[in-house]
């Protein structure tokens, strides 16, 4: 059974006075453990697709299933729980909570799942060590470099041991070298831990780690290539 299965997905939303048809009948299947790169020009529907994959948003029509569970049948709170347990997000702009330390940021998803304080702290330290930030645990986001922030974000995405990591332009705000480390980190999540990673990216380097590249245009899949 595939981890994610989308069929005939459309998504319309209003942006001011205009209707945007972000997705127009998209089919996509993602298997457990693979790394998929989603590419396409702006306005092609990458981000919208990403939101639907991460259960942040529901499609206007079509069917979306996560682990065989139809997303349309879940209540809002069930979607939140699914997100909390099975999905980890990494954003282009890091999206850390500025008032909280690195450790607290990593603990955040665990707080909402009700993980006990001690267990949470240990897990956060373990993850921060794993991404190479053992000495940055008490730093606030504004005391960290871009690359360090993105590593905190990856540690946070891993907090609840999710099945899938959704990364929206994870290297977009980083220099090539730092971007390289981030990509290597993401690759290892798939290779070592068997996690599924979906990347939205323009970065040719990012494409290199992907097992499969899907190109979108005008809300549809236009090309799908398997990397060697």
């Amino acid at each position, binding site marked *: 059974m595939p981890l994610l299965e989308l069929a005939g997905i459309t998504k319309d939303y209003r942006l001011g006075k205009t209707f945007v048809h972000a997705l127009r009948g998209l089919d996509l299947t993602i298997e457990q453990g693979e790394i998929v790169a989603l590419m396409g020009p702006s306005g092609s529907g990458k981000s919208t697709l990403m*939101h639907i994959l*991460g259960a*942040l*948003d529901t499609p206007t029509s079509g069917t979306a299933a996560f682990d065989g569970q139809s997303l349309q049948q879940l209540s*809002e*709170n069930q979607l*939140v*729980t699914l*997100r*909390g*347990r099975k999905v980890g*997000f990494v*954003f282009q702009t890091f*999206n*850390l*909570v*500025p*008032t*909280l330390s690195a450790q*607290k940021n990593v603990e*955040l*998803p665990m*707080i*909402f*799942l*009700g993980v006990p*304080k001690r267990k949470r702290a240990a897990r956060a330290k373990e993850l921060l060590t794993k991404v190479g930030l053992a000495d940055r645990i008490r730093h606030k986001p504004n005391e960290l470099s871009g690359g360090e922030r993105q590593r905190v974000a990856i540690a*946070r995405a891993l*907090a*609840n041991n999710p099945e899938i990591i959704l990364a929206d332009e994870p290297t977009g705000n980083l220099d090539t070298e730092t971007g390289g480390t981030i990509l290597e980190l993401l690759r290892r999540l798939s290779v070592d831990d068997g996690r599924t990673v979906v990347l939205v990216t323009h970065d040719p380097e990012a494409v290199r780690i992907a097992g499969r590249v899907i190109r979108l245009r005008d809300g549809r899949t236009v090309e799908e290539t398997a990397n060697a």
Partner: protein
Amino acid sequence: MLRDFLVLAGSSILHRKIRSWLTVIGVFIGITAVVALISVGLGLERTITDEVAKVFGVDTFVLAPRGSFGAARTSEGSDQYALDLEWLRTLDGVLTAAAVRQRTAFVQGQPGPEGRLAQGFLPVMGLSPELITSFSSFVGSLEVEPGGRLFQEADRVVAVLGREVATRLRVDAGQTIVIAGDADKPEITFTVVGILATADDGRPQQGFTSGMPASATTIYIPYDTMESLWGPAQDVLVTLVRTAPGRDVDEVANRAQAELRARGSRVTAITYSDISSAIGTVTSTVSAFLAGIAGISLLVGGVGVMNTMFTSVLERTKEIGIMKAVGAKNSHILSIFVIESGMMGLVGGIVGTLLGLGLSAVASAIIGRMFDVRIAVVASPVLITATLGGSFLLGAVAGLWPARRASKLPVVDALRYE
């Protein structure tokens, strides 16, 4: 989880120090005003009841004319009543009793230089000697001019005169006056034993703190002697009754009132607890009214909290999106924001309570100096608890609307917010 939310809310408050403090100031000004006003009110109430207890004594009650006190006050009540004082003294539970009766009588003094007697219709008051011996706190410090004295228990045909009436009747201590009673009773000659001294400022002494100032125009004679002039008492102004040690004052007072009424005395028994509850009603009404006005500033503080929270929600739209993306339910977001605004209310409450108590102490000292009394400083635990609880609630309620708005933000829109 609640503790984690407290930490999250706290870190957000500390992150916006200036704005948070300004909001807290908005809250604590109102709280300070309310706490100070209520505390001063409570202090005044305690001071007044303490003073009343000091004068009144908790074992004493007053028999006043019916309809002259409390809710049953009427204008038609007569201000004098019939009384059998000897019978009252034998009532179970009564230790001692003293009464005051008053008449206007034709009085003759001493002849003037041309031989004419000084005479006229003058007020005559009959006082039980016990009033002076047993109820001195009611009478206060009555002083007579040098060479005179007040009357004692064995005295029968003696009089004490106010300074003004003594002058008019041309008498001094040791001389006599003649008072005429009812037509069927003989006139009686009284020896003047003392003349009430006037106070330094020339005014008569404030003798009877129970509301009957010692008068410079009145003739005072022993209560029992009044009977020889006018018969059994139909003209009593006030009676003071002390109960036997260990007896329930209210019970004795109620029984005395009921039995006296059955015997034809139109009286109302007033005990210490009647007076203090009457005072309590007045002072708590006044402080509730003042606190209500001060409460308006609390409302303003609450609106301030609401405003701050709306700004905070707007500023943190993206943060709300992040929290939702990593697994926060709407109820979690709502809790975090309500706790945050409640905490600002609570901090305002703590600061306001401390300042309010301080302010009330200062105000009590100033009022005390102005009126030359010691005003009790009251820090009521009930008031403090209620204020702290109330201020948290004020903040939480003010934050409810912004928090609901925050919790309802669609996660995708919130994440996209710049």
